[in-house]
C-alpha cells in the first residue's frame, strides 16, 4: 500500500513544491501533525479529563481545557516557526566514492527568527540550526557517496518542533542540488596507450610502461621543477637531486586508455581516476581515452576536472 502510494505522493509533491534553488516555505508547503510527544500529551489530557468528569471538578476541567487550548495554539506557533523560512542551495564540491558528499544549504529569515530548524535526509540524522531574525544560517549536510555519477539527494526534509515539541511541522524541499561523485581512486598499473590511431612505431613502449616504478625516468633537477617530482629515494642514495620524469615519452603524448585495462568497468574507471590524479599532481600532460569519448592531452586543473567528470559520468545518460 505504502509502496504503491509512493510515486503518487512524489508526483503530488513535485507539483506542489517544484524543484528550485531557492524555496520559501509557506502554507502550501508546510505540513503539520502531532508528534509522538503530542500523542502522549493527549493521553495525559484524557486522564485529566477523566478526573474532571469523575470528580465533577470544574478546575480539573478548566486545566484540561487550558492545556488543550495550548495544544491548539502550539499548532500556530509550530507552523509559524517554519513559515517564511527561505532555503537556498549553497553548492558543494565534488567528492570521490566512499567519501562524504557535503551539500551546503543556506537558511534565510525574511521576517522572524526560526528556532531549532532540523534539516537533512531522513535515514540520516537531521542537523539543527537557529536562524536569527532577518539573518541567515548555513548547514553542511553530508551524505555518503556510494555511487559515481550525479548524486541527487532527493527531497530535503525540513522540520521543526519548536516551541513545545507536541507537533511537528515539516516540508519536503527539492533544492535541485546535485553533486558529481568521481570513481574511487584505485592504485594500479599505468594504463598506457601509445596514441590514438597511431601505429606502433616504438615497439617496446608498452612493455616498459608496465608499473609505475619501472616507468620512472630520472633527470637532473633544474630550478623551476616541481618539488613533488623530486626523487627522494635517489637523493638518499647519494645520487644527487633527480627529478622523476615522464618526459622520456616526450614527443609522444601520454594517453590513459580505458581499453588497455582489464577488469570490470568500475575497476577500470577507478584505476583511470587514480592516474588522472597522479599525473595531474605531477603536472604531466596526458590525454584520456574512453570508449566513445576522447579528451585531448593537456594539463592543469580544468583538464583534470574535465577528465574526472568524464570518468564519473561514463556510461550514464547525459
Amino acid at each position, binding site marked *: 500500500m505504502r509502496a504503491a502510494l509512493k510515486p503518487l505522493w512524489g508526483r503530488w509533491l513535485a507539483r506542489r513544491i517544484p524543484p528550485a534553488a531557492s524555496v520559501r516555505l509557506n502554507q502550501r508547503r508546510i505540513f503539520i501533525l502531532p508528534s509522538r510527544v503530542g500523542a502522549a500529551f493527549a493521553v495525559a489530557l484524557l*486522564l*485529566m479529563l477523566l*478526573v474532571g*468528569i469523575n470528580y465533577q471538578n470544574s*478546575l480539573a476541567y478548566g486545566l484540561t481545557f487550558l492545556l488543550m487550548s*495550548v495544544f491548539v495554539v502550539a499548532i500556530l506557533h509550530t507552523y509559524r516557526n517554519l513559515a517564511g523560512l527561505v532555503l537556498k542551495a549553497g553548492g558543494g564540491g565534488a567528492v570521490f566514492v566512499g567519501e562524504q558528499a557535503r551539500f551546503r544549504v543556506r537558511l534565510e529569515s525574511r521576517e522572524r527568527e526560526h528556532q531549532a530548524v532540523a534539516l537533512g535526509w531522513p535515514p540520516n540524522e*537531521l542537523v*539543527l540550526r537557529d536562524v536569527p531574525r532577518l539573518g541567515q544560517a548555513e548547514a553542511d549536510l553530508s551524505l555518503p557517496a556510494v555511487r559515481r555519477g550525479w548524486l541527487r539527494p532527493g527531497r530535503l526534509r525540513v522540520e521543526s518542533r519548536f516551541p513545545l*515539541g507536541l507537533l511537528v511541522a515539516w516540508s519536503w524541499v527539492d533544492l535541485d542540488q546535485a553533486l558529481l561523485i568521481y570513481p574511487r581512486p584505485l592504485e594500479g598499473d599505468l594504463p598506457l596507450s601509445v596514441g590514438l590511431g597511431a601505429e606502433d612505431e616504438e615497439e617496446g613502449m608498452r612493455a616498459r610502461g608496465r608499473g609505475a616504478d619501472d616507468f620512472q625516468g630520472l633527470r637532473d633537477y633544474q630550478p623551476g621543477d616541481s618539488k613533488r617530482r623530486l626523487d627522494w629515494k635517489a637523493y638518499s642514495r647519494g645520487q644527487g637531486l633527480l627529478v622523476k620524469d615522464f618526459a622520456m615519452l616526450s614527443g609522444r603524448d601520454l594517453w590513459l586508455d580505458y581499453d588497455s585495462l582489464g577488469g570490470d568497468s568500475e575497476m577500470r574507471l577507478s584505476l583511470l581516476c587514480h592516474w588522472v590524479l597522479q599525473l595531474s599532481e605531477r603536472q604531466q600532460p596526458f590525454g584520456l581515452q574512453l570508449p566513445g569519448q576522447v579528451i585531448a592531452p593537456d594539463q592543469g586543473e580544468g583538464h583534470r576536472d574535465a577528465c574526472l567528470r568524464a570518468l564519473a559520468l561514463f556510461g550514464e545518460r547525459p
Partner: protein
Amino acid sequence: MSALPGIPRIALTWLLVAQLLVILPHLLHLPLWVIALWLGAAGWRVQIFRMRARYPNGWAKGGLMLVVLAGVLLSRGTLVGLDAAVVLLIATFILKLLEMRTRRDALVLIFLGFFCVVTAYLFEDGIVAALYSLLPVTALLAALVGLQHSGFAERPWPTLRLAGGLLLQALPLMLLLFVFFPRMGPLWSLPMPSDKGVTGLSDSMEPADIAELSRSSALAFRASFEGPVPPRDQLYWRALTLERFDGRRWSQSNYAELPSAPQWRKAGEPLDYSIVMQPSGKPWLFALDVGEVAQNESRMMTDFRWQRRRPVDRPLLYQARSWPQALREADAEPPALRRALQLPEQGDPRSRAWAAELQREHPQAEALVAALLQHFNREPYVYTLRPQPLGRDSIDEFLFDTRRGFCAHYAGAMTFVLRAAGIPARVVTGYQGGELNPGGNYIQVRQFDAHAWVEYWQPEQGWRSVDPTYQVAPQRIELGLEDALGEEDGFLDDQPFSPLRYRELAWLNQLRLGWENLNYGWQRWVLGYQGEQQLKLLHNWFGNLDWQRLALALVGSGTLLIGLLALWLLKPWQQRADPQRQAFRRFERLLARHGVRRQAGEGARAFAERAGRELPAQAPAIQAFARCFEAQRYAGQPASRAALRQALGELRRALPWRLLR
C-alpha cells in the same frame, strides 16, 4: 530525532522549579516526610548534573520505593484509597527525578506534573488555589520549551515568557471550551479525599454537639433570593428532624428514612431562592419550610426534609421554592404521632411531673406551649456556649438546676416536656439566620449558625414550629450568635485569625465581604458549572437547547478565535511581497496595454528584446528597465526598489498615452 538526547540545563532548572511549585499546595495534606524526600531527590539530581554523583542503581531505586511504600503505610495506614494514592503519586513524581536521564524521562516527569496539579484540585478548589496553579503549569510548560534544542530555549526568561504567552493565548479558547463542553455524570464513582475537613450537622444530637459546631466559622451554604430577602427571624433552614430520644441523645428515627412524601397544602406567597451548599458529607439539603427543591436524585422525606441519593461531597447548587405558611400534615396518621410522643421508660421524673401539672393547667395545646415559652422567658435562663456538664437526668438538671444552655438544650427540653404532656413534638435541626452580604444580596450561613428548634402537632393545624431559644436570647434569632453571646462568651475564641472577629473594622469588613462575594461568584459560576447549571446558562443564551446548534456555535466561535490568533501571530499583511517581481508585473501590464504580451516561458531579456523590436521608439527605455531588473534579480546587485520604479516611470513617460480599455 530518534536518539535519546540528554536534558538541557535550562529544562532541568525549570523542572526543579515546577516540581517545587507542584508539590507546595499538596503539603497541606501530605505527610511531612515528603518534603525531606523532595529535598533529597532534588539535591541528588543537581549533584548528578554537576557530575558529582551517579544515577541511583537498581538496588537504590528499589530501596527508595520500599521506603516510600513504608512511609505511605505508616502515615496513611493503607496503600489504597485516594489519600494514599495521592501520596504515592507525588512520591513517584519526586523519585522519577532521580532516574531521569533522557528527554523521554523528562517528558514523563512533565506530564506527571500536570496530573499532580489536577489532583491538588480535589483537595482545594478556591480562587486562590486556581490562580496559584497557573504558576506550576507555566513552569512545566517552560520546561517543555527548554527541552527543545535551540539557542532560544537555553535562556531562562525567554522560555518563561514564551510559556506564559502560550497560556495567555490559550485562555480565550479555554473559556469557550469550559462553557460549551458538555458535562456528564461520573463514569464510575471514586473515593473523595478524606482529609477534606467537613463540619456540619449530624443525624443525632447531644446537647453539647451544636455548641461544638458554633465554634466553627466555616461556611455551610449561601442562599440568594430572587425577591427581597426575608427578615432574619424567619430564616429557619431546615435540615432534618430528630424524633427518637434515649434519655440523653436525640436521633433520627428509622421511619424518617422511608421515602413517602408527607401531604401538605400550599398557602401564602412562595419564596424563590437558590442555594450553593458546601460539601457536608451528608445527603440532606437545606431549605426553608416547606420547601420544594429542584434537584435530580433528591426527594422529600416523611419529615419534610430533602434528601439526595448521594452525600454532598462537592459544592452543590440547587434551586428551591418555599411556602412559609403551608399547612403541614393536618391529618397525620396515628403511627406517625405515636413516634412523636415516644419517651424513655424512665428518667427525668421532675420534668414529667411538671409536664403533668402544665397539662392540667392548660388543656389547650396552644396555651400549654405559650406557658412553656413564658416559663423560659421569665425564669432566669442563660444562653451560653459553655453550659455546665449534665448528669443522668439531663432534662431535669437543665430545667431546674443549671438553667444554662444552648439552643439544643432548650429545644430538647421543650420537646421532652411537650411529649410528656401528650403533645406530639420533635426536634428540628438546621441553621438559623445568616449574614447578608450587601454586595451580592445573598445570605451566607456558617456553621456557627447551626440551630435546633421544636415543632409540635395539633389536629387540623398540622405541624407548627416554635423556638424556645428566642424566649431566652432573642438577639440570637434577630441578630445572630455573636450578639447573643455578648462579651461574656468566647465567640470564635479558638480562631484568632478569622476575619469574622474583626467585623468592627469597617474597611476590613468591607474587604472580607468583597472577598466572600468573589468566592460566591466563583462557586456559582466556576465550581458549580456542572450539568444543570450549564444547561440553564446555555438555555438562557441560546434559547431552546439543541446540541447541534451548540456544537455549531462552539466550532464556529472556536474557529473564529483561532483565526484571529493566527492573524495576530502570523501577520500576513506584513509579509513583504517580492518588490522586483511586483515591478516586473507592472512592466508586463504596461507593455500588454500596448499590445506586447509576454509569452509563457519567455525570459525577461527575450521579452524586452522582442518588445524593443515591436516598439522601436521605446526600445531604450524598455531595455533600461530590463537591464535594471536583471542586474538586481540575477546578477546579485543590491535590490533597490527605487531604481526599478524610476526605470518603470521613464518607460511609462516614453510610451504614448493610451486609454485603458
